């Protein structure tokens, strides 16, 4: 009986563990916001590829990528960033808790991203030089958040 109970307890703990792994805190929010990041990086890949000379400049394709990027940085993703959904709650996230602290300046950084994306939207279709110039502030805006709020990653 004792053994049976012990076995049951072990099984219960294992089940609880499995359940936690599946329902890791904020799993869906984290997945969704990481998906948005990847979507942005795919648009940036088109623009960056042209800036680097790896892809031939094509005004239409550049404009489309810039429009997509601008759309992706302006959608309301606030519900994907609930308080506490940081790396210590779920290691799948690389967000640091200090992102949610007062005075972290997250609003300013988001505005900087919007402005850089809007500037790229205005420039991308007008020529390769304009696109190249708009790339710098975009990189700066990305790093603005990653510098302050992201766990160093492999």
């Amino acid at each position, binding site marked *: 009986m004792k053994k049976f109970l012990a076995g049951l307890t072990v099984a219960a703990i294992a089940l609880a563990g499995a359940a936690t792994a599946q329902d890791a805190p904020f799993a869906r929010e984290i997945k969704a916001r990481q998906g948005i990041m990847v979507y942005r990086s*795919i648009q940036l*890949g088109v623009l960056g590829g042209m800036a680097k000379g790896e892809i031939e400049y094509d005004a239409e394709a550049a404009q489309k990528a810039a429009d997509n990027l601008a759309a992706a940085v302006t959608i309301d993703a606030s519900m994907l960033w609930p308080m506490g959904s940081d790396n210590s709650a779920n290691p799948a996230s690389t967000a640091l808790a200090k992102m949610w602290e007062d005075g972290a300046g997250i609003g300013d950084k988001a505005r900087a991203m919007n402005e850089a994306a809007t500037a790229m939207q205005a420039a991308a279709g007008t020529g390769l030089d304009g696109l190249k110039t708009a790339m710098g502030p975009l990189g700066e805006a*990305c*790093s603005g958040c*990653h510098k*302050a709020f*992201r766990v160093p990653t492999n």
Partner: protein
Amino acid sequence: MRKLLTALLLLAALALGAFWAVTRPRPLAADALAGLVPDAAHGEQVFWAGGCAACHADAEAKGDQKLILAGGQRFASPFGTFVAPNISNDPNAGIGAWSDLDLANAMVRGVSPEGEHYYPVFPYASYAKATLQDIVDLRAYLATLPADPTPSAPHEVGFPFNIRLSLGGWKFLFLDDGWVVTGDLTPAETRGRYLAEALGHCGECHTPRGTLGGMDRGRWFAGGPVPGGKGNFPNITPAKLTWSEADIVEYLTSGFTPDYDSAGGHMALVVENTAHLPAGDRAAIAAYLKKVPPAE
């Protein structure tokens, strides 16, 4: 009994002598910089290559604010939390009153003008390989930067690590001004080695450290956990960093990875420095990285 006491005392004196011999600060000779003519314009390049602003300016500083070297950034470690000091041109709060030799002693010997050991959070274990000409040039450039009166905050380091003389032992064990990557190198790879191993002090984060905090030269650039924090410093040996040289150059210029993720954490600050280097220097670093022995 008396003989025994005498012997013991003698032994103690010898041990103390040995301790002092190992741990005493070792500044450069007074005439070490004789004949070197400072070039402030080149000193600016040394400034960006050395990454001074990444730690001594505010982490959020942009543009010319990066030239205000008032200190204040905090660095957690297993030994305590270190606070970057003011190295602005202020004669009292900063290093405005320092001589060329003071800066050289700080950078290549880890010794303050008062003759005290610095903590190796200040990367003199890497700067030890810098040329004295570069340091004289850097001194001239730093003298052109703004003075800031903010006093340096004390390090938050407990016993026994607050006994600075013990750092002499650390230096005895770990201060090594020999190159890690040796063998036949092209001029670009040699320049890259100087930038990465000496001025850029890449190994300070990307090389794992032993229990006493020395860089493990046998696992050069193999990465490891962030001390006192979250995450990992990535392995940047060819075993893991499979980017092309052009990819590395782009990353050191704009911060974008080949997947168009962007540099984060302290590396974003590093890119803000490397972006100021001549393109040839970034290419040299990329060429050097390909010569680092692969480590898993």
